[in-house]
C-alpha cells in the first residue's frame, strides 16, 4: 500500500459513522413527524411519499422513529464511553504511576469487573435500578472502566521507560504531573482506538438491553425495542424488523471499521509492516 493513503476500512467506517452521527444530530431538531405521534387508523402503511419507510403497528412514522432512535443510541454510546473512558484511563494512569499495592489493587478490581459477562452485568444493574436510558448509560460506562484502565496502564507502563520521562523526573516533576503532561498525550492513540471500538459495543449493548425491555421506555424509541416489537409482526410487516436491524448493523459496522482503521494507522508495528 502506498504510504499516506487512507485505508479502506477507515474510509468506509468514517462514512458510515458520519452518516449515523449526522442523522442522530438532525433528529435532535427535526424529524419528518413527531416520533411518538400515533395514527392507528393508518398502521402498517407501505412506503409512500408521505411516509418514506411507511408506518409501524401504531401508525407512527418509521423514518422519524429510526432517526430519533439513532439520537438515543448515539447519546447513550457517547456518554457511556466518555464516562467509562475517563474513569478507566484515570485509574490506569494512577496504577501505572504509583505501582506497588495501589497498582495491584486497581488491576485486581478490574479483573473482577472482567469476570462478569458485560450484558449480564447490564441486565443486573437495569433490574436493580429500574429500566431507563440513564441506567443503561451507567451500566455500559461501568463495564467500560476496567477495559480502559487496562489499556491505559499497559500503554503508560511503556511510556514510563522513555528518556524524556526520566528527564522530566530529574527536573523535579512529580508522578501525577508527569502522568498528565507526558504520559497521557503519548497514550492517547490507543485510548482513542479503544474508545471507537467500545462505541460499537455500547450501541450493541444498548440495543440488546432495549430489546429485553430494560433500556429505552416507550414512547422513547430505540432500535432494539423496535426490533423486539417487530418480532411478532414478521408475518404482517417484516420490513419493521429489517429497518432497525439494518440501522444497528450500519452503526456497529461503521464504528468497528473506524476503530480498526484508526488502529492500523496509529499502531507503529502495523505501519512498519505496511512500509516494508
Amino acid at each position, binding site marked *: 500500500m502506498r504510504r499516506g493513503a487512507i485505508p479502506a476500512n477507515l474510509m468506509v467506517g468514517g462514512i458510515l459513522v458520519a452518516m449515523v452521527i449526522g442523522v442522530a444530530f438532525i433528529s435532535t431538531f427535526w424529524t419528518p413527524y413527531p416520533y411518538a405521534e400515533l395514527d392507528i387508523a393508518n398502521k402498517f402503511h407501505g412506503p409512500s411519499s408521505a411516509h418514506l419507510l411507511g408506518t409501524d*403497528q401504531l401508525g407512527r412514522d418509521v423514518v422519524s422513529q429510526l432517526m430519533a432512535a439513532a439520537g438515543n443510541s448515539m447519546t447513550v454510546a457517547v456518554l457511556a464511553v466518555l464516562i467509562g473512558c475517563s474513569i478507566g484511563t484515570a485509574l490506569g494512569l494512577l496504577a501505572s504511576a504509583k505501582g506497588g499495592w495501589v497498582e495491584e489493587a486497581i488491576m485486581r478490581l478490574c479483573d473482577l469487573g472482567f469476570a462478569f459477562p458485560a450484558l449480564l452485568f447490564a441486565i443486573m444493574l437495569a433490574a436493580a435500578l429500574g429500566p431507563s436510558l440513564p441506567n443503561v448509560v451507567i451500566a455500559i460506562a461501568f463495564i467500560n472502566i476496567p477495559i480502559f484502565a487496562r489499556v491505559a496502564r499497559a500503554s503508560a507502563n511503556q511510556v514510563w521507560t522513555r528518556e524524556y520521562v526520566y528527564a522530566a523526573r530529574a527536573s523535579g516533576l512529580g508522578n501525577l504531573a508527569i502522568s498528565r503532561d507526558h504520559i497521557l498525550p503519548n497514550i492517547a492513540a490507543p485510548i482513542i482506538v479503544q474508545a471507537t471500538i467500545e462505541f460499537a459495543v455500547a450501541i450493541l449493548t444498548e440495543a440488546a438491553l432495549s430489546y429485553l425491555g430494560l433500556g429505552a421506555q416507550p414512547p422513547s424509541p430505540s432500535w432494539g425495542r423496535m426490533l423486539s416489537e417487530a418480532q411478532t409482526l414478521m408475518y404482517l410487516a417484516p420490513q419493521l424488523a429489517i429497518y432497525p436491524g439494518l440501522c444497528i448493523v450500519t452503526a456497529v459496522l461503521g464504528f468497528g471499521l473506524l476503530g480498526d482503521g484508526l488502529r492500523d494507522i496509529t499502531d507503529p508495528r502495523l505501519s512498519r509492516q505496511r512500509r516494508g
Partner: protein
Amino acid sequence: MRLIDKPLALTASIMIAATGLMATTALAKSTLVYGMQQEPTTLDPTSDATASIDAIVSHNILESLTTVNESGEVRPDLAESWTISDDGLTYRFNLLHGVKYHDGTDFDANDVKFAFDRAMAKDSVNPTKGIFKPVESVTVIDPYTVEIVLKNKDAFFLFNVAQGDASIVAPESVENNKTNPIGTGPFRFDSWTRGDRLKLTKSPDFRDADKVALESVEYRFIAEPAAASAALMAGELDAFPGFPAPEMLPQFEADPRFKVIVGSTEGEVILAMNNAKPPFDNLKVRQAVSYAINRAEIIDGAMYGRATPIGSFYPPHGTAYIDLLDYYKHDTAKAKAMFEEAGVAGSTMTIRVPPFPYAMRSAEIIQAELVAAGIDAKVENVEWGFWLGEVYKKQAYDMTIIAHTSPNDMGNFARGKSYFYGFEDPAFTDLWEKISTETDMAKRDELLKQGQQYLTENAIHAFLFQLPQLGVYDTRLQGYWTSSPVLFQPLAGVFWTE
C-alpha cells in the same frame, strides 16, 4: 433359496399388518399437546393463586362438589345432587358412590369435610378464602351425605365451590399435592419437567372413563409469542387456547390446518387509578382520564380489533350487562379542560405496566392519549414480581393496566382501602353485600346493573375492554372450551375427528 424366501414373505406380511395397525391408531389419535403461556408455580390450586394451576389441575386431576359448564351454569360433580333449605342457609349434598382417588383410596363425605376444614382453618393458605367466609359448619351425615350450613345467604356459593380453591383432596395425599396432585378426576398426574412440559394420563378408574377420548395430555409452556407461533406452525402443538399475540392470528386463519376461535373470558381490562393518592382522589381527574381514553383506538392498536369494549366493570356477555360505553364519550378537548380545572394539567402521571402484551400495548396508546389531553404521562414496564410487590401489595403507583379474570369480581370494589384500588365507599360495600346475598337471579341482575352504573358514574377506574380468549386449534380437534367462564379448562370432553 426358498428357505430364505419364506421368512421374508412372513416378515413382509407382518410389516403390512403393522402398518395397518399404525394407520388405525393414527386415525383415532388420542394424545393432545396443549400450549400454555404461564407455567404453574406449584400444582396445588388450594394454596396458590397462579391461574395456570387451576387451568391444568382443576377438574382434570382434582374435582370439586360442583362444576361449571362453558356457559357458566353450575352442574353436579362429586355431589350428584343437593337440596337447599328454605332459608337458603343449609345445603345438603348427596355424593357419588364408588369414586376412587388415583392412588386407590375411596372418596367419601369425610374427604369433603377434611378439604373444607383445611381451607377454612386459621392457618390456611387458600388463595380465595372469601369462598369459605360464609360457611358456618360442615357436617358428615353419612358416608355419602354432607351438610354445609352458612352464616348468611350466599348467591354464589354453588358456583364458588366448583372452583379449584374448593377442590376435594384426600388427607392421605394432600401433603404432596404441590408436586404430585392426587384427585378423583379423569386424568392423573404423570410428570412435570419444569420450564418445559407437564404430562397427564387418562385415569382408568374414572367413573366415566369410557367417555374420555384422550389417553394423555401434554402441556408445553411457551411464554414467547414468536416461539409459540413457530411451535404451532411446526405441528408440535395441537392447541394454544390463550394465544398472546393477536397480530399473529391472520397467518393461522390463512392456514387450513388451524382453526382460530376468539372466545370470551371473565377478564375486564382496566386502567386502574390509585384512588387513595392525589390527584386520583379527585372525581374530576378520574373522569377526565375516562374522557381522555379512546377505546376504539386502544382495541384497534393493542388488540388488532379482537376485543369488546366495556364501559364498566362487568363482562358484556353477562346477563346483567348494561351499555355504558358512551357515558364518557371520548373527547380530548373536554378532558384537557377538566384537567386544567382540577389544576393537574401538565403534571406527571406514571403508568406502571405488568409484563403482559395486552397491558404493555394499551399503555403505549393511553400514554399518547393522555399527553394529547395535556398530561405528562409516562410508561414504566415492570416485572410481574415487582408489580405484585409494589403495585398490588404496597399500592405504590399512579395508574396501572390489568385484567381481572375471576368471575363475579365486582366485589373487588368492596375490599376496602387496603386493596390496591385504594377505594372505599360504604354505599358500594352495602350494595355488594346485597348482591352477594341475593339468590333471586332477576333481582341480583338488577342490583348488578346499579353496581355498574355506580362504578362508571364515579369513574373509579377507566374501563377498557373485555380480554378475549384467542385460541388456535388443530381443525381435527373437537370438544374443547373456547371461552373461559372460570379459571379451569376441562379436557375430558376433547376428542379427535377423522
